[in-house]
């Protein structure tokens, strides 16, 4: 790891100001992606702005329509939250599928979204539920947030403060894990929102994306057989040692079918 300056601001405005000071400054949340990159010497920020002590960035609020989660809320808190389990069980379950216990105790929702790893889980829920991302500079609709490989709509110095997830009628997330990393080779989030069905997939493209064909089929009839034989085109899907584009395309169908089955239970 290269040397860096460490800052621990007490509120989010100071954090934003510190982060804006240098182009090579980095926000630190749970450190489960950033610190890895620093240890491997792939990232060498001059300044680290740690959000860890900013109290109001963490926490879960649930009302009749939505679940709002602070950016610094750890995966484990979401996983274990009785309120989230009741309002959007699929979201708690998804949080519980991230990494391992140690990672879940450190990693945060804000970090996961800002990082936009192509194989991360949360983006599938954010997109699948049509969540709203609130930042120090305003709000972003989920559909306009993920831009590409590790790329989001966030501007330099913009800090995610919370995410608001509308409560769906029913939803489920099915993750097919990479055996080694246990990130998603393919993860499909299916949500029956009441006003239509949303299907989002992670792991398959440069960032999380929606599957219009499946949404259409499921909006017509929310049942496994609506998607079971819907073949996804493999063109442009990710391909690596663990899964070819064809295999990923196949897995999207299988995981979508299983997600619908789970959502109906």
């Amino acid at each position, binding site marked *: *790891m*290269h*040397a860096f300056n460490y800052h621990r601001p007490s509120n989010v405005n100071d954090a934003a100001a510190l982060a804006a000071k240098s182009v090579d400054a980095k926000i630190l949340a749970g450190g489960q992606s950033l610190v890895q990159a620093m240890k*491997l*010497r792939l990232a060498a920020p001059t300044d680290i702005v740690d959000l860890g002590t900013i109290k109001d960035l963490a926490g879960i609020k649930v009302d009749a329509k939505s679940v709002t989660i602070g950016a610094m809320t750890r995966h484990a808190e979401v996983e274990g939250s009785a309120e989230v389990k009741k309002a959007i069980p699929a979201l708690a379950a998804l949080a519980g599928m991230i990494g391992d216990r140690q990672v879940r105790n450190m990693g945060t929702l804000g970090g996961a979204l800002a990082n936009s790893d192509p194989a991360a889980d949360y983006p599938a829920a954010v997109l699948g539920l049509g969540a709203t991302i609130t930042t120090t500079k305003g709000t972003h609709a989920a559909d306009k947030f993920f831009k590409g490989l590790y790329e989001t709509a966030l501007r330099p110095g913009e800090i995610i403060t919370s995410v608001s997830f509308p409560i769906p009628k029913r939803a489920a997330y099915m993750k*097919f894990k*990479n*055996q*080694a*990393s246990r*990130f998603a080779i393919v993860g499909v989030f299916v949500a029956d929102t009441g006003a239509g069905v949303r299907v989002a997939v992670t792991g398959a493209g440069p960032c999380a994306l929606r599957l219009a064909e499946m949404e259409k089929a499921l909006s017509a009839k929310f049942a496994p057989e609506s998607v079971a034989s819907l073949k996804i085109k493999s063109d442009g899907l990710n391909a690596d*040692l*663990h*899964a*070819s584009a064809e*295999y990923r395309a*196949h*897995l999207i169908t*299988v995981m979508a079918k299983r997600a619908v089955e789970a959502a109906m239970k």
Partner: protein
Amino acid sequence: MGAPLIGARIQRKEDYRFLTGAGQYTDDVTLPRQTYAAFVRSPHGHAKIKSINAAKAKAAPGVLAVYTGEDIAAAKLGGLPCGWLITDVNGQPMKEPPHPVLAQGKVHHVGEQVAVVIAETLDQARDAAELVQVDYEVLPAVADVRLARAKGAPQVHGIAPDNTCYVWALGDKAAVDAAFAKAAHVTKLDFVNNRLIPNAIEPRAANGSYSRADDAYTLYVASQNPHVERLLMTAFVMGLPEHKVRVVAGDVGGGFGSKIFLYAEDVVVTWAAKQLNRPVKWTADRSESFTSDAHGRDHHTIAELALDKDGKFLAMRVKTTANVGAYLSTFASCVPTILYATLLAGQYTTPAIHCEVTAVFTNTAPVDAYRGAGRPEATYVVERLVETAAREMKMDPAEIRRKNFIRSFPYQTPVALLYDIGDYDATMDAAQKLGDVAGYPARKKASAAKGKLRGMGYAAYIEACGIAPSAVAGSLGARAGLFEAGEVRVHPTGSVTVFTGSHSHGQGHETTFAQVVADRLGMPIENVDIVHGDTSKILFGMGTYGSRSIAVGGTAIVKALDKIIAKGKKIAAHLLEASEGDIEYANGVFKVTGTDKQKLFGEVAFAAYVPHNYPHDKLEPGLNENAFYDPANFTFPAGTYVCEVEVDPETGVVKVDRWTAVDDFGKIINPMIVEGQVHGGLTQGIGQALTEGAKYDSTGQLVTGSFMDYCIPRADDVPMFQVDTRETPCTHNPLGVKGCGEAGAIGAPAALINAITDALGVKDIAMPATPQNVWRTLNQKKAA
């Protein structure tokens, strides 16, 4: 005295230390005036080094020195030696390309050490290492074992045409050919035994220091055999007298073979310590481990089994190409030959076997012994062939094995080994019962009802442990002896310290060996401590690998104990005014036979050290004995594994659902530790078959260079194991022990692939059977 200690489930003495964080690993050793090394490594699989510019690195903060291959050449340091000479089919010695400790003009694999930067702190060393500018001319590379001898393949070393290190053979080719000619059935398989990366939890580490006052070196190193490390380093590389070098391998966090070998970094830090007159420490990070530890396996094999119409094995023909990587590591040459071809008889009476092995150089990390070392590869050949033959001939896979079991011992195989004892029916019977093979059809039905494919597979393995009778090994090319040494030091008040040349890096010797000693001497285990891993404390040692520790190291200790008891009897005879022949020893008491006259062990020890009343005319004072033991033969653990898998045909995911292992390890000292060894071995074997596979691309880049892509199994990848043992005591060592450290890794891959191919209804599937691989195999089957 209480219950016997041999055979007791005693909790590990060492675990308190480990579990409370009090272990002392190499990286925990920080010496006064410590400095830190970072290695500059090749990013290319194959390249010429046109120039190295270290000026910036040398000027960086805290940097004390930067050394390159030129400095090593100027210092006349030798290359790393290979410890086993293989003579090829034409009587020529194997090709041994120089293996420099820092690259000389050319790099031959990604991760090869090119330069070292030594600085006041580790971060300074690493920062400066990034400033060393190496100008490479990239050359075409070859990494795949199947392509190494292809026409026009890039040549790794000038001295090894066709990238061939040797072509070696064992067995009677004419007899095999004749048997095949009259066979009713021939089963043939063509497969790769996948390359594995050992991944001990503690990465390699070395801390070299030098004392100008004594002109002596100390090397702390994560090693499985400190004396061998010292011997190779002093005699072959550095030209130093052994008594001026101390090697300490204290607590070592796993090895699986990868820490047997002498590595370049160990030499460099030791040498540099003298140059700087300061200690130099290096600890690999995980990325370095992936690219620079010796890997395992990586064979391409074409194997055939000839059978008569009743399923009796007539002959086996095996042709293997073994990847030895870019350089010959310490035991690289003997693993795919001596430790492989000799095991091809398995548990069977196959009368004729021929095996030809071609070892090839490639632009990959060196390949050497990894848990099982040759025997997993051999077992895979035999047990895949046997199971496949049974299916092709529509015979029950257990019955075809029973039809061919060796039942009369000693048994001379056609591939050089003499099995002393075994009972293969016993382990097969027990495994079938414990594994509820009878209930399999019902379970298969239940799986099918859930849309899952269930399969069952066996492996009835044999292995050779207790390496090795030195004369036999020597005649086969070993450049070292393979005995073991032990010393029993009885203290004046009767407690005991035992020094062993075996090394414990997870095996639990501090407990197992103490059980043997306490049991033999009839004293509480608390009175016995085991010391290992320091050349300045232990008389000599060949270290731990090949499941040799209890059979060879344990026997050396027993021999020393026998001497202690013999001397104790003399002292007791004197004290009790009896004749030596009338003294018997049991339960910690020397007794005059048939009387109640006795002396306790502690009283005798005390008399030896406070020899006021002592037979000085006949006996030296003191009670301290050592012994060297050279085994009479290998030991032959064997067993049967049965596993069942359930495959999800939609995704290709294989769930290992049931696993039964019944092993014959001879006498068992501590069943709990043995079970732990079996669990660990099975898990590594399951890893090989299901999740692990090192992959290089065609330029020699390691594609699986981290745990993000290289998958070692986790606890939830394996089932609850059902393990049991059957016992035929080894006939040629006093404890009757055989060894248990590698069995699981040896038998598991074949059993698992047998189960998966059964579930899928295919002849073969490449390891590792990852979900994608299974899915593709099913698609190909559908298409066919």
